[in-house]
């Protein structure tokens, strides 16, 4: 079965490696990510001011277009997933807003798409036990910390991704890949998000806490589902290093990169050149190249 796919802006630029590895892996797993036609930016935040629907129009347009092409829409970026899933739910449940939005975008969309995260496809459509059997190169010995961030999980009622306080879906995925998932208390804390633009110090501090906690609990690498989080916890490590001299950087993977290794893809196709902290020494040490 093929899935209609909304990449989002970052996956076309800074996170090309996320996009490409996901597409390559899906082919190996027997499905294709069919890119949505004429997609636009999702808006990047779900508006908190509920009376202003302007910010909802971009994701609504994406949803309406997608509905013309299929019944389910897949995303990879946790931010896009959050915005699109919540907008979809709003259109589904709020008749007044639905009419207003449809009037604006000149569509008639009822909110009846299924919004799926790539990890949900792996868990629910393929199944982690099935996936485990398809692994060619298990990530044995790799101690990786699954970092959820906020966007996959919150608000709990709307996202319905996993348990609200103690999610395990991501760890289950890593275990299926043969890696050793490191439990750490900051796995659902905020990475600092857009603070890295206006108040970079705040974001650096957030990233330091998350990374520090993961490292203290034994993690050798972080795994992310979000280009925003990745920017803060991967690219910011050089800033952290300047501030905290004894800090030892660790690589940050997109989960699809680890999936790619496990599925036996050539490491040169996994886009590691876009990772800020070079993961190759660690992978070499673990015999995963």
């Amino acid at each position, binding site marked *: 079965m093929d899935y209609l796919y909304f990449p989002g802006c970052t996956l076309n630029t800074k996170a090309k490696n996320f996009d490409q590895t996901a597409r390559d892996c899906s082919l190996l797993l027997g499905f294709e990510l069919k890119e949505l036609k004429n997609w636009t930016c999702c808006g990047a935040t779900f508006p908190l001011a509920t009376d202003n629907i302007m910010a909802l129009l971009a994701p609504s347009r994406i949803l309406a277009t997608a509905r013309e092409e299929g019944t389910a829409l897949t995303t990879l970026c946790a931010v896009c997933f959050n915005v699109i899933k919540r907008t979809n739910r709003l259109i589904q449940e709020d008749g007044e807003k639905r009419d207003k939005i449809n009037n604006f975008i000149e569509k008639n969309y009822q909110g009846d798409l299924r919004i799926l995260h790539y990890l949900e496809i792996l868990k629910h459509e393929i199944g982690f036990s099935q996936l485990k059997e398809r692994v060619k190169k298990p990530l044995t010995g790799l101690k990786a910390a699954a970092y959820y961030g906020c966007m996959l999980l919150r608000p709990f009622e709307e996202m319905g991704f996993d*348990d*609200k*306080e*103690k999610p395990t879906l991501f760890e289950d995925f890593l275990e299926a890949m043969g890696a050793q998932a490191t439990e750490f*208390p900051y796995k659902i*804390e905020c990475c600092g998000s857009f603070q890295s633009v206006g108040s970079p110090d705040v974001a650096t501090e957030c990233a330091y806490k998350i990374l520090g*906690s993961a490292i*203290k609990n034994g993690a050798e690498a972080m795994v992310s589902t979000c280009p925003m989080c990745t920017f803060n916890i991967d690219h910011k490590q050089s800033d952290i290093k300047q501030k905290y001299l004894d800090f030892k950087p660790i690589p940050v993977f997109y989960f699809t990169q680890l999936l790619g290794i496990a599925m036996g893809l050539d490491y040169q196709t996994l886009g590691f050149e876009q990772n800020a902290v070079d993961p190759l020494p660690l992978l070499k040490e673990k015999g995963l190249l």
Partner: protein
Amino acid sequence: MKKLGVFICHCGVNIAGTVDVKSVAEKIGKTEDVAHSTDYIYMCSEPGQQIIREAIREKGLDGVVVACCSPNMHENTFRKAVKSQGMNPYLCEIANIREQCSWVHQKEKGEATRKAEEIIHATLEKVRKNESLEAIAVAVNRRVLVVGGGIAGITASLDLADGGYEVILLEREPALGGHMAQLSKTFPDLDPAFGGLLSKASEVEKHPKIQLHCYSELEDVKGFVGNFDLVIRQKATSVNGAKCTGCGLCIENCPVEYVSEFERGMGIRKAIDMPYPGSVPNKAVINRQHCRYFLDGSCHRCEEVCPEKAIDYDQEEERISEKVGAVVVATGYELYPKEQLGEYGYGEIPDVIDGLAFERMLAPNGPTKGKIVRPSDGKVPKEMVFIQCVASRDPDRYMPYCSRICCMYTAKHATIYKEQVPDGQPYIFYMDIRSDCKGYEEFLQKTIEEKGLLYLRGRVSRVFQDNGKVRVLGVDTLTGKMVEVAADMVVLATAIVPSPGVKELAAKLRATVDRHGFLTEAHIKLYPVESSTKGIYLAGCGQSPKDISDTVSQASATASKIQALLSTDKLLQDPLIAFVDEGICSGCGICVEICPYEAREMDSHRGISIVHSALCQGCGACIASCPNFACELRNSASNQILKMVDTFVT
């Protein structure tokens, strides 16, 4: 043709500010059978009632409509007023033009005036066909059942018994005391709770007018105010209470230990044990779920050592039938279930405990003998975090209401902690501080100033274990800064919820509970201790969260209301009940099935259904369900109701 009078109340500006009362009075006055129509600023006042009385006298009225507030407020007032003039009180009706008109149509004055007029016309239609009725006298059983042996039930029982009434007191647990028996000291005077409670409890035990049934539950209730028939289920304690002296030899010798719920999971108890040290009654009880005799018959230790031969393994539970005239529901509270509090790590992190567990820790007879130590390693905590409003005031996820006691007990906890650990630092996360009773604010200010408590206004987002510490992430909204405390121990002030089983009990008593399971009172302001079912009264936290002072006050109020109720041999009951047209009733029995008060019964001789006038509450269910239209409600007969409807639709 009747001669009717209409009296329109201004209710200050409540009605007159919206409804043009003068023009309504004038228009209604033109109705053929209305002999008198007038308005007045406060009809319920003495001069207002005087207007009604004079009009009845002078014009010889034989029906009255008072257009005013809800009949819940003043129907009785006006019925008494007309009765004083020799008119049958049931010929006086209320037209509600305040709650159902002026208050809800404040912006549409013209329409409101028209509607008020229609409501009065409709009520006139009802009065035209009202019959003169007499209240029904019912014999009263002057005994009282009190359900719940916490401080509420104890207080109500003692007040009633001292007033000369016989009381049956039921307690689900093997001993009296409820949650108050778990407390260390109480605010605002830091008075040890236990001693005072025990002296009251033993007063109950010794009182000649109180029949105490511990380890007992109410199994069945039938009847109505003044005449309730009860079945009490007394569970088997496996110990002969008359023989047991409470010496404790059996407990010393019992080989089975299990986690004590009374100690909030921090202590152990034996399979044969006292409910708590020094409990009232001071008799041992065997927990059959844990006792080896009952599990596999392998142990008889207690029977062997008991010098009084009080152990009775064959004791069976008993069913006791009783009759009472009124019931007090004093079922108390429980704390919000910890399984549902994910973000605070409660139940997972051993050093995160709730307020009651901390009380046990502070109690001299508790698992740590009053010493504050971390449950995980027994060390004295130097950094303590107290979190208020856990699951309270959180409409999105938990309970929307304020649990009312947490602000004060947290201040008390932090004070006692600071006295015991002078170099320790307590942090208190709060939303607002509510300290509105006598001496509370003074207590709070004193603790903050003298004890150096650190109050942080803000919520905690997460609590997790980190390197032997309990890390608390929160925010201080007064400085706008994130706060992170590496605490040694965390105490959660979790929400008060009604104790389990109260819904089932309420259903048996035909009392109602609100959406959170708290028992509902007949009127939040005017009838706060009466339930909506006559003869069922409320006291304590089963009705709403409250502290000990309020609980005791409410229990005493309840007791005095019941003493008034039971002060006569006969109760007068509203005659506005169902009656049957015997010529039409086909005896199908649908009404018997549907009646929630067991007031309908088949008369097999005549083949028709009859109404027990003492049981009928006038709810109208039988009337709506009768396929032959053979039932009617006195003074709300269908020809009256249809006429009223006509007024509105034509």
